């Protein structure tokens, strides 16, 4: 069930966001759903009241008081329930104007109402036929509701997909700055800014916006990374640009042109040079993996520690996975997508790789793998997304990841935390 009239989105618009109480999450959810269910008809009725009234007035102006037949046809994206409610509302409004609805054979005028729509509005058209005379056409329009609908998907077995944020602008990365049982302070990176949000008074409130300055145009399929720091809040890595926040409030962001390597992991010290006008890393590594200081151009990287070395995996632009261990560069065609990230967990061997993979209709999924040797073993069912994945980054603690996807239906970017749940 969705409660569209109540903007059932998890963060948009932010002031109306509802989140479950940390103490009684299930109860709160249940009450919220029940409330939503009970109040929906009332909400819808008030939503359509104005156009119902206006159309009834226009119909009655043509027919005058008396007996009319009313037939309603839906030619729009309105649901059956909406159509029934609009029909009821229209009848009530016509009655108040003296036009009572009867069967066609008893009517002095027949009214065919079509509920249609165009790009921006619902268009309700009444074609009125009286006797043998010409028919009249009257119509009204009412804007489409812009409220987005976010339907939370059923919980997967081993990777929990926890919604964090959604917005129209592309989300490059998200950092959770503080959390209790759920995040309470977020930094959201998009191409123009870092926005800080705090959950207070039962809603998300924008705390501060720090603009990102840059001289060159951003590349398409833009990538960016937020890294939390000890001595200041965060660093921002963007194509050809590096930004650093100040360490005192109010926070500021200082950006400069930079070709410094981006950190590829919080846990392992390795950086990769990002091509400033592209969507991939050049392949240059700093300081390198053993003697290896470069690999093929790649989109993302993930590390798996071994007893005596670290195995690095690179999702290369040629669609293959390069495995570097400091000595060899082994190529594997695993049919993974462009985005991979590693997680340190208490499940299985303790380290897993998350890999995106494309599905049908540009809908991607993520699943977890282990690498006992050099061949991956699937360790979770896939977690599906409502569109293509645009970013997948390991979070600061290394135990969960941030996945960003673009919802194919709404066009909004949605960020999720992917957290493993062992043995489910």
């Amino acid at each position: 069930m969705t409660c569209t009239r109540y903007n059932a989105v998890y963060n948009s618009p932010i002031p109306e966001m509802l989140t479950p109480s940390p103490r009684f999450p299930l109860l709160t959810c249940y009450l919220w759903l029940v409330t939503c269910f009970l109040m929906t008809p009332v909400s819808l009725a008030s939503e359509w009241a104005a156009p119902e009234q206006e159309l009834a007035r226009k119909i009655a102006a043509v027919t005058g008081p008396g007996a009319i037949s009313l037939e309603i046809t839906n030619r729009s994206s309105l649901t059956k329930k909406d159509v029934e409610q609009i029909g009821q509302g229209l009848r009530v409004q016509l009655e108040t104007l003296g036009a009572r609805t009867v069967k066609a054979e008893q009517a002095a005028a027949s009214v065919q109402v079509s509920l249609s729509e165009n790009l921006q509005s619902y268009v309700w058209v009444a074609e009125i036929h009286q006797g043998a005379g010409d028919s009249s056409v009257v119509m009204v329009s009412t804007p489409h509701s812009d409220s987005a609908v976010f339907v939370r998907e059923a919980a997967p077995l081993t990777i929990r997909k926890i919604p964090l944020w959604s917005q129209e602008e592309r989300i490059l990365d998200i950092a959770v700055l503080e959390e209790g049982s759920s995040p309470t302070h977020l930094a959201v990176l998009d191409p123009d800014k870092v926005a800080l949000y705090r959950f207070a008074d039962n809603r998300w409130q924008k705390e501060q916006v720090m603009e990102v300055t840059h001289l060159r145009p951003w590349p398409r399929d833009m990538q960016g990374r937020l890294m939390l720091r000890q001595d200041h809040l965060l660093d921002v890595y963007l194509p050809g640009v590096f930004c650093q926040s100040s360490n005192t409030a109010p926070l500021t962001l200082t950006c400069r042109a930079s070709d410094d390597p981006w950190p590829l992991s919080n846990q392992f010290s390795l950086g990769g040079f990002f091509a400033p006008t592209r969507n991939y890393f050049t392949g240059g590594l700093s300081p390198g993996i053993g003697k290896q200081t470069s690999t093929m151009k790649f989109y993302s990287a993930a590390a798996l520690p071994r007893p005596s070395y670290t195995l690095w995996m690179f999702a290369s632009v040629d669609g293959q996975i390069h495995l570097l261990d400091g000595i060899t560069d082994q190529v594997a065609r695993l049919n993974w997508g462009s985005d991979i990230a590693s997680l340190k967990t208490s499940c299985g061997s303790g380290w897993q790789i998350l890999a995106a993979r494309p599905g049908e209709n540009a809908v991607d999924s993520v699943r977890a793998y282990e690498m006992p040797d050099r061949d991956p073993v699937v360790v979770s069912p896939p977690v599906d997304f409502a569109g293509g994945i645009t970013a997948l980054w390991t979070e600061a603690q290394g135990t969960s990841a941030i996945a960003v996807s673009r919802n194919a239906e709404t066009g909004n970017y949605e960020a999720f935390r992917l957290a493993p749940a062992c043995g489910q």
Partner: protein
Amino acid sequence: MKLSGWHRLAVSSLLLGISALAETRPQYGGTLRTTTRIAPSSLDPADRTQSDSLARRNLSSLMFDTLVVMDNRGRLQPALASSWKTEPGNQRWQFWLRRGVKFHDGSPLTPEAAAASLRVASPGWSILAAVDSVIIERDSPAPDLGAELARARNGIAKRGPGGSVTGTGPFHVTDWQAGKKLMLAAEEGYWAGRPFLDAIEIEMGKNSRDQLIALELDKADVTEVAPEQSHRASTEGRRVLTSSPIELMALVFARDRQSTADGKLRDALALSVDRASIGSVVLQGAGEPSGAILPSWVSGYAFVFPTEQNLSRAGQERSEIRQVPSWTLGYDAGDALARVIAERIALNARDAGLILQTTTSGSADVRLLRITLGSLNPRVALATVAATTGIAAPKMGGAAVEELYQAESAMLQTQRLIPLFQLPAGYALNSSVQDWDQDRDGSWHLEDVWLGGNRP
């Protein structure tokens, strides 16, 4: 679970992996090869000697940007103008230009350059260049001026000697053989990000059959598909994407209604056309029979205008006229679909007692025309049809849907045109073309397209 469950998952993953693609992230590089039916002799977006078509607009948008664009909901979005405001009354609009934008020749986009370009496209407007903006003043309220500026013909171009033009769009021209071939290369410093493709190669003047053969022989990556061929192309396993209906096919009379009798004969002709049969047989179900000028997804009320054939009423209207003239029905000689439909219409008319002689001559009494939807703004779209067909521009005081309906009704009552079908635009793509993002009106976004698979 443990081991057995994990093993099950491993097996299922392997099975899935066989058919899965490896890449999800867009890849840079490669040359996209495409074909079009049109063969323009000029690339200037404001050249009014070239007929307006979706293909021409799409070509133009590769090289030229407009100040604003329209999204799929018909709302204005920033492009070369990063912001704008309108004075109360909508007579004066001010557009602030995006900073740092350059023409393909390296010169900066200035308010003077933008204003000069717009003066060529719309000579009747008062256009001023301010410090960082362009100001447009009109004699009367112009609430739809933004939508007008979003049209490809208002693309910002810098015109040089000898008819050369340069734009600020995502691709620049590397080779241009008028009417035959256009080669474009990605603009590295494009303000909205360098396109993924390195280059685009466009072969022009190709008929539908040749285009599909080029796709079949892997000589093209993207081709146009005629509406009547889209169903078959899909069933043959080709990847076909179609837009919403964006092209009005209509009968357009060369002259205004001459008399009451002439009006009755035009009525009879409109009533005689069997749109349903033509739609299912000739168009293979690809076009929507329409009695309206605007498609329903743009106006919301197109179904109000009748489309059914009514031979008895047509015959009755015809019988009231003693002298029935013989009309010539013209169509584009290069348009095979138009020829078949024109012949069907002539047969339908004969059933109602009318005489229609089909011809490819340019001076026919009535012509079968295709008119591309001019804008996602219904008022601008209606005005565009009026301009194309020679009907007086409709007067609309406000933005209410009822006023739009009345304006459209008034245009139809002139009896200068008889709407027949709303046709979609279709494209066939080979498997290497990724992220083909097509607007509802069929507009391309080739700057977002990339080539996957084995293509270079």
